[in-house]
């Protein structure tokens, strides 16, 4: 089981994503804004972080920029979780040294697998 922090302000997306991840055996902390996300992440030792770019208080990029300066999170994968156009999302991920991108809307068939690949998890049906 891995600890995942999901920073997502859209309640529908947050519910769906956290439900899928919990069902797959992960522990999930949901933060609805950037400040809450930073508090949750800096107060725990997550195994993976999902950050929406459009947050109501602090931009997602700024949240990632702060996280990338925390030495103890150097090895923690940070994924951009966004509805931005794919090319823009990947450019932002590269610029802000994120490990990957998961585009919204969530595809329930692949979402857990997309997350698992960054955790090194292999599932056998």
């Amino acid at each position: 089981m891995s600890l995942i922090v999901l920073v997502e302000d859209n309640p529908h997306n947050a519910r769906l994503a956290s439900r899928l991840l919990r069902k797959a055996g992960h522990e999930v902390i949901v933060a609805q804004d950037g400040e809450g996300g930073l508090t949750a992440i800096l107060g725990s030792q997550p195994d993976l972080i999902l950050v929406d770019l459009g947050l109501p208080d602090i931009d997602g990029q700024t949240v990632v920029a702060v996280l990338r300066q925390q030495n103890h999170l150097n090895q923690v994968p940070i994924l951009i979780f966004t509805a931005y156009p794919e090319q823009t999302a990947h450019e932002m991920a590269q610029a802000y040294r994120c490990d990957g991108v998961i585009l919204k809307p969530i595809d329930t068939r692949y979402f857990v697998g997309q997350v698992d690949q960054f955790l090194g998890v292999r599932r056998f049906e």
Partner: protein
Amino acid sequence: MNDVASVSADGSTYEAVSTRHYTFVELAEIYNQTRIDYIVPMPMNGRRLEEYAHFYDVHPDASMVIVDENGNPVALGMLGLRGERAWITRLGVLPGQRGHGLGHFLMETLLHTARRYGARRVQLEVIEGNQPAFRLFTRFGFIETRKLLVLRRAPTPVSLGEFAIGETRDMDVEEILETLRNRIQNDPVTASSWLDETESLMNAGSLTGFRLVSTDENEWIIYRSATFQITHIVLKAKTTQTALALLQAMHNRHQSNDTKLENLPVDSPFWAAFQHADYRVEFTRLEMARDL
């Protein structure tokens, strides 16, 4: 001014109510609902929207919420006012309420209100690719004036490259304000958008500025330095090289800050300097305007 107009559409009646009757938390909630399916959703909480209204002279009486017969908000549009100029912003209709002519009603109401407040010209921005909004604004006589870039820069180390940073001299608050007041704002290429006009920077506060002293001291940069983030960058430079020197000096001073620059004109002579300094395009806006 309270309810200024009403319209009937599809058998329902809608009214425009000034935003003065709502808290910023309520307005942010309405705004977020209107943007939930946008190309680039930019949600705000109440505090951020209040700050936005303050920075950009958004007038609470001139800005409107459209409500249905039960008083439920279905659309929002805000109006910034500066002398004889007005700026339409944060305009949107809830996804389930579109196609009823509410955007048209909102625009009519805002233009009428702008006239009542003495505006003679109205401007706005629309994200490139938002065709429904672009068509709506075109129908109301707005003409595209230029493209504006929204740029981001992660706090990566600054590479000096081939350009050396000249010696800089910090400006105090008085000099920053004087420099902003004296800058030329009506150049068609380099003119600031509403967000970076002198009024916006003065409202925003937390300004830092410095000059290159290796020249005649007529090359400078002024920006807002807030927690975690640099925003509202305006600069004056004679060449791409000195513009880059100013940007490098700024980023060397704030190496851990994220940077967001909104609405750099795509034809700006400084765009090359921003590119050299690792700024990336997040999205593009179209600026549109019309006379009243």
